[in-house]
């Protein structure tokens, strides 16, 4: 699953660290270190962390959100051509 924290908004209240200690940790006085790709089994704890954040800085992707997307290129088979720069 995918998680991102808006670290402009984060104030280091550390509520996420109590709700999901294996995915969020505070370093130094107020640096938040988090796992942006926690295992799916952690979803309930991550959701608790999201709800516990006093400044609502945690964003979590809902399950199966990509079902309606269409990939027109297979990322594993793409080579990267150079942009034609004037």
């Amino acid at each position: 699953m995918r998680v991102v924290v808006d670290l402009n908004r984060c104030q280091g209240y550390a509520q996420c660290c109590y709700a999901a200690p294996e995915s969020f940790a505070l370093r130094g006085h107020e640096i938040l270190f988090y796992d942006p790709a926690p295992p799916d089994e952690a979803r309930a704890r991550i959701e608790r962390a999201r709800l516990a954040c006093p400044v609502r800085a945690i964003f979590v992707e809902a399950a199966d959100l990509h079902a309606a997307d269409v990939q027109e290129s297979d990322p594993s088979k793409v080579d990267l051509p150079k942009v034609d720069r004037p």
Partner: protein
Amino acid sequence: MSERPGIVIVGASLAGLRGAEALRRGGYDGPLTLIGDEPHPPYDRPPLSKHVLAGELEADATALPHLVSLRARWRLGQPATGLDRAGRTIRLADGSDVPFTKLFIATGARARTWTEQGADLDGVFTIRRREDAVALRRALSRPPERVLIIGAGLIGCEAASCCRDLGLPVTLVDPNPTPLARILGTVVGEVLAQTLRRSGVDYRPGARVRALVGEAGHVRRAHLQDGGAIDTDLVIVALGAVRETAWLARAGLVADSGGVTCDGACRVLTREGPPDVDIVAAGDVARWPNPIYGGRAITVEHWGNAVEQAAHAASSLLRPAQPKPYVHLPAFWSSQFGLNIKAVGLADGADAVAIVQGDRASRRFLAVYGRDGRSVAAVSFDQARWLPAYADRILAGAPFPPILDATDQRRIETLAPGFPPLRTERPVLEMAHV
């Protein structure tokens, strides 16, 4: 669903992704295509120069969450190489053309590379893309004998912090008197200079690298302008970014290596003058007149702007009859050497700085910047909880200093912020095409 080609977003990073989400949230139900030059779905860049370099996160762990269902068509690994505005098509590198009804430009920026002598040597890195971070991480773990970092901005200092955490000898070279001197001034920058030295970084302010020289194709030494030399086998070039606008060169839009110029509502200006109301831009690539700074046209290369401006640009695209000015207080964060550095507003050009909470000696403080008697910016070192209150005052154009007699506040010390003089030479616009 309509027969029209719909909205195309060029740029599949943070601004492109959040822009796509804002279009869907805003009620857009038509075809939506995202074009990205990188083969990866949108990912978060800030961890690359921190946790990925440190080896704490895999580079592919930072894929960004989608916050709504996009129902989008993705064309990844295909840079846009041209825009035919009259024909309403985008040319891709593979020669195909993608038609659009409306266009959302979010092509961002790329790392400024080393262009002086030694540019072709192995062992010279930048940090911008996932592959950059993977390659640099691999090289750091070999390990090198000495890392040389060119540029003491945010990325250069974060890289220095990671290298010291890895126990690597590091030299950091920068022409200014302190790190972050151009964005925060030397009064605040000096705190970081002391931190660098205390952490064992061989920090060389006021120095410039003239040339990189190698042996058997691999970098071995850097020559400084003052005649000195530094032995190094791994160089990190941290000289900022160049906006990705080359593909717009013949589109008749106002664009150069400093960005694509928009009106106040993020709609891109044509060379004839008025905006093309069907083309918007957001994120690192977008230059717009920010009302907070008297309508001065700025680009803001920060995470928060990519998110907010993308939402604003989406709204301008969906509701062309009601353009609203995009008002944005720039903000960034950086973590390095165990410090959490956060800032709001633009400090450059300030004529005064006041330490309003804490003190520099403890490395826990909040500084506010003033210009012509108004508060224009604030920076926090490990005092982030005070920052929103000051952001509010800055947004309101409060007098400087803005908050007096706050709890725990000592006598306020006001100083000249110490911005280095503006460079006399104009930066080389390697691809100006206005």
